[in-house]
C-alpha cells in the first residue's frame, strides 16, 4: 500500500491495556487552565520512568465545562488500577490545587468504576473543608489562600489502551520532523486520545530490555537507529536517515485507530520513505493496530482481546 508515494508497511502496532481518567480543569481563563494542565502532564511521557502517561486531550470552551468557564481536558493512564488513584491524587494535589482560579472535575461521569480523588484531597482543608451534593455528585470545597478550590469527589476509571504507535521513516531529520509535526497537528484535539511525548513525538523509541546492560528495562531501538545501520540487524531501509515515532494512548481502540488514520495520512508527504509500527510479534499486547487495515478505513478492534467496553 502506498499513500502519495509513501509506503505503508504490512505490519501492526502492538498496544497494551491501561487504566485511565479524564480530568477537566477549569479556570478564570484558558491561560490558567493551560498552566495547570501543563504542570499536571509534565514528566508523564512513559510509564517506564514516569509511573504514568498523561497529556492534554483538548481545550474546552465554557459551554462544555461543568462550571461554565474555559477548560482543558487531560487524559492520564497507568498500567494498573492500584496505582491510578495515587498518581492522580499527587498530580492534582500539586498542580491543580496549587494553581490560581482552577477547579477540577471528572471527565468520565458515565463510567461506573469510580476512584476517590477529591475525597482524599479534602484533608488539605484541615477540617475547614465542606462538601456539596449537586446533581447526585459530591464536590469538595477546600478553603485556600486565594479563596476556594472545588474538586469532584470521585472520577470515572476507564479501561484504556496504551502504546498505539507508528514510525515515520524519512530521508532526512528535517523531513521526519516535518512529517511528524503534520501528523500531530492532524491528531490534535481528537477525542479520547493523547500523545504523551514532547510535542507528541518520540525520537528515542525503545526496545524491551538491553543487549549489554541486564538491569535496563528498556534501551535504544537499535534496529531503527540510522547511525547503527551498518553494525546491527537494521530495519532502516536504504535512503532513510531519520526515524521518528508517534505514541498514542486512548480511552478505547477505535479512538486510537482513528487518530492513527489521521496522523499517518498527514505524515505521508515529500521526504518520507515509509510508515511502519512497533510490535513484539503480537505476543505481549492484546491490541493490534494493523496499519493497512486502518488506512483502508477499518478502525474496529479485530483482536477482541480484553477490549475495553
Amino acid at each position, binding site marked *: 500500500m502506498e499513500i502519495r508515494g509513501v509506503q505503508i508497511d504490512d505490519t501492526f502496532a502492538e498496544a497494551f491495556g491501561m487504566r485511565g481518567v479524564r480530568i477537566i480543569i477549569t479556570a478564570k481563563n484558558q491561560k490558567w487552565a493551560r498552566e495547570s494542565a501543563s504542570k499536571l502532564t509534565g514528566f508523564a511521557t512513559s510509564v517506564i520512568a514516569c509511573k504514568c502517561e498523561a497529556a492534554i486531550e483538548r481545550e474546552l470552551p465554557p459551554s462544555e465545562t*461543568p462550571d461554565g468557564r474555559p477548560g482543558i481536558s487531560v487524559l492520564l493512564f497507568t498500567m494498573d488500577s492500584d496505582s491510578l488513584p495515587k498518581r492522580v491524587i499527587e498530580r492534582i494535589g500539586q498542580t491543580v490545587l496549587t494553581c490560581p482560579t482552577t477547579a477540577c472535575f471528572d471527565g468520565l461521569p458515565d463510567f461506573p468504576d469510580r476512584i476517590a480523588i477529591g475525597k482524599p484531597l479534602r484533608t488539605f482543608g484541615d477540617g475547614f473543608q465542606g462538601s456539596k451534593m449537586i446533581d447526585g455528585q459530591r464536590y469538595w*470545597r477546600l478553603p485556600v489562600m486565594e479563596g476556594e478550590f472545588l474538586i469532584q469527589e470521585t472520577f470515572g476509571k476507564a479501561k484504556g489502551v496504551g502504546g498505539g504507535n507508528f514510525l515515520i521513516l524519512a530521508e532526512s531529520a528535517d523531513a521526519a520532523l516535518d512529517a511528524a509535526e503534520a501528523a500531530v497537528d492532524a491528531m490534535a484535539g481528537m477525542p479520547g486520545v493523547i500523545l504523551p511525548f514532547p510535542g507528541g513525538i518520540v525520537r528515542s523509541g525503545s526496545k524491551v530490555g538491553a543487549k549489554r546492560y541486564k538491569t535496563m528495562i528498556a534501551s535504544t531501538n537499535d534496529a531503527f537507529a540510522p547511525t547503527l545501520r551498518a553494525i546491527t540487524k537494521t530495519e532502516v531501509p536504504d535512503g532513510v536517515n531519520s526515524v521518528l515515532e508517534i505514541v498514542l494512548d486512548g480511552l478505547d481502540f477505535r479512538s486510537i485507530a482513528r487518530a492513527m488514520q489521521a496522523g499517518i495520512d498527514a505524515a505521508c508527504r515529500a521526504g518520507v520513505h515509509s510508515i511502519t509500527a512497533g510490535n513484539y510479534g503480537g505476543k505481549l499486547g492484546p491490541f493490534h493496530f494493523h496499519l493497512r487495515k486502518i488506512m483502508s478505513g477499518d478502525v474496529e478492534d479485530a483482536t477482541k482481546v480484553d477490549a475495553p467496553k
Partner: protein
Amino acid sequence: MSDRITLTLRAPLTHPLDADAIAPDRLAALDAHEISTLRLWDGRNAVALGDVFTVIGDRSSNVQLEGDLARLHGVGTLMSAGTLEISGSIGHSLGVRMRGGAISVSGSAGDDAGAAMAGGSIAVAGNAGDRAGGALQGASKGMTGGEIVVRGGVGREAGARMRRGILYCASSGVGTGIGMIAGNIIVSGAIGDSVGAGNKRGTIVALGPVRVPRAYAYACTYRPPHLSLMLLSLRARFGLPVDDAHVHGLFKRYSGDLAEIGKGEILEWQATH
C-alpha cells in the same frame, strides 16, 4: 397499561381531603378500578378516589391531576418514582417525605411542600406556603435530599432544619433556613428577617436584598466555585432564568450562625457596575 393516568376532579372540593394515596409509584401497579377504590380521607371519613376524580388510564407512573385542587392535601407523600403533573394549585403537604420522581405544579402549593423530602424534585410555577423543604412538626431534620424550585415566593421558615438538598425560590419569608444543619437555599429576591438563625453548615445564597443577622461575621468577598455549578445545573434542569452575572459573580461571605458551630454561610451577591 397507558402512557399516563389522568385524574380529573369531578366537582369543586368543599372540604379538605387528605390524598396521600395519590403517588405515581403506587398508581403504577393498579388498574383503573383499583385506582378508583383508593381511599382519600375527609377527616375520619374515607372517600373513594373514584367518587372524587374521574380516572382515565391505568398502570402508569406518569400521573396528571386536574381541577381546583387547593383543598387536596398530602399528594405525593412518600413518592419514590414517576412523574406527577398538577394543573393549577395544590394544597398543603405536597411531596412530604418523597424519595424520588418529579412533581410539577403549574399553580401554587400550600404549606409544607417537600417537607422532609429525601430525593426527587418539586417544581412550583407559583408560590409555596410556609416551611417549604422544612421539617415536619417535632422532627429534627427538614429535607435531606432532592430539589425544590419555586418560581414565586415561599412563606415562613423555608428550609427549616434542612440537612441536604437545594431549595430555590424568588423570595422567602421570616426564618428562612432556621436551624439549618446543611444543604442549600438560593433566593433570587428578597429574604425575610432572621435568616439562617441556628444554621450549622448550611449555605444560604442571597441574590437579592438580605439583612444578615448579627450572629454572622463577614469573611471575604469572592467567587464561590460551587455556586456556578449549582446555578448552571438549576438553569439546565429547571429552565430557570439564571443570570450569568450570578453564575460568575462575586459574593460576600458571612460565616454563621456563630452561636452554633459557625460553619454555615450566607453568600450575598455583589452587583458590579
